[in-house]
């Protein structure tokens, strides 16, 4: 890429970075301009990328070059989603949705159950004593009690009173710790992104830092 193109790119990046950050102080017309540019470009990018990766691959290569006529079935089912915009035949779009939901629900029933239920339950059966390291034992107790109590919290068919209420409370605190950890990690990730943008502004654009 030539030097001038890189310079133009850097100025564009700098402009949009400053304008998008400006919304933190106050909403302004330049921010709204950048926001609409972002949404428009990203949506257009998504459509074109899907065209490159799936539609052209299957229509041009699969159907026309390789002669895979069976591909006509998913293509027709896929196109039926657009009948939503023609009121008299809008019910046809249900075929697209039901096709996706049929495979989707089959996928959940066949593939999600083992990794997200069976394996998770199995992995919770941890040794509670005798590991040789007291800290590992304590951690395992915390792990097992935390998991069981979190599950009890989701039992909505029983009243949360007495022992169940207390167990459910422990579950709520366990989940609060989990949310706190997720929150802390999210903040760190976002700060890291923000530092990256600042490094770009002060380094690549203004050349104030190396």
């Amino acid at each position: 890429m030539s030097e001038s193109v890189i310079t133009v790119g850097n100025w564009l990046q700098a402009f949009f970075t400053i304008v998008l950050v400006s919304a933190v102080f106050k909403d302004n017309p330049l921010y709204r301009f950048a926001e609409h540019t972002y949404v428009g470009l990203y949506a257009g990018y998504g459509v074109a990328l899907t065209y490159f990766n799936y539609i052209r691959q299957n229509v041009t290569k699969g159907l026309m070059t390789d002669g895979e006529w069976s591909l006509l079935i998913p293509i027709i089912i896929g196109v039926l989603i657009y009948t939503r915009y023609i009121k008299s035949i809008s019910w046809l779009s249900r075929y697209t949705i039901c096709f996706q939901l049929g495979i989707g629900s089959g996928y959940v029933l066949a593939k999600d159950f083992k990794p997200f239920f069976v394996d998770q339950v199995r992995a919770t059966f941890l040794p509670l004593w005798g590991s040789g390291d007291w800290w590992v034992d304590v951690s395992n107790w915390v792990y097992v009690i935390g998991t069981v109590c979190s599950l009890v919290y989701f039992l909505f068919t029983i009243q949360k009173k007495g022992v169940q209420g207390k167990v459910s409370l422990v579950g709520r605190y366990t989940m609060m710790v989990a949310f706190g950890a997720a929150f802390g990690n999210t903040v760190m990730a976002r700060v890291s992104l923000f530092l990256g943008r600042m490094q770009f502004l002060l380094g690549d654009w203004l050349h104030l830092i190396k």
Partner: protein
Amino acid sequence: MKKELPVAITLILAILYVLANYFTGVAFLDTAKNLLDRWYLIVAAWAVLVGSINLTQIHGRRISGKREGWIFSVWLLICLYGMMFFGIFVAKNASHPGWTFMYNQLIAPMNATVYSTIVFYIGSAAYRAFRVRSPEASVLLVTALIMMLGRVPLGRMLLGGHPALSQMADWILNVPNSAGMRGIQIGACLGGVATALRIALGIERGHLGGTGE
């Protein structure tokens, strides 16, 4: 034809997919599974324009009603269709220099900036949560604080070089965090399975609506 057949198709596909996953080695079921996996992606790809059409409808109404900020809606549609047509008819592939320029110099940096500015909003949300002074909010924030300080040199500096905060952050991440997340995951899985069964059996029919019939 309008409701019963789509529901029947859902059930047949779900059963076929489940059978194909449990009875591997049966030629017919293996072929069916491979076809369905591929068809699923193709059908999903064709639906990608629905989002753009919805955006066009929403912003088209703003433009035709000359509502506040309608000029930005015009610009959004120019960007949307400009990028789409540039990609499909000019660039024609993802390695085109113009296409990579648009992504590397505009979309990726804007994406990073938008996500990075969220830190200010979640910061103010955390402050408001802390003002509630409930024990749950305090647990959440103390954990978040340990996680953050345990990941930066400042945390070690505050304790005179001792890695206690970092060790605590690791323990929280590996033990109570995993326990809480596991509970949520198991609950979500059971909910997902129940919903999948309801959809497959035609008990849940909310997705059939929205077509005016």
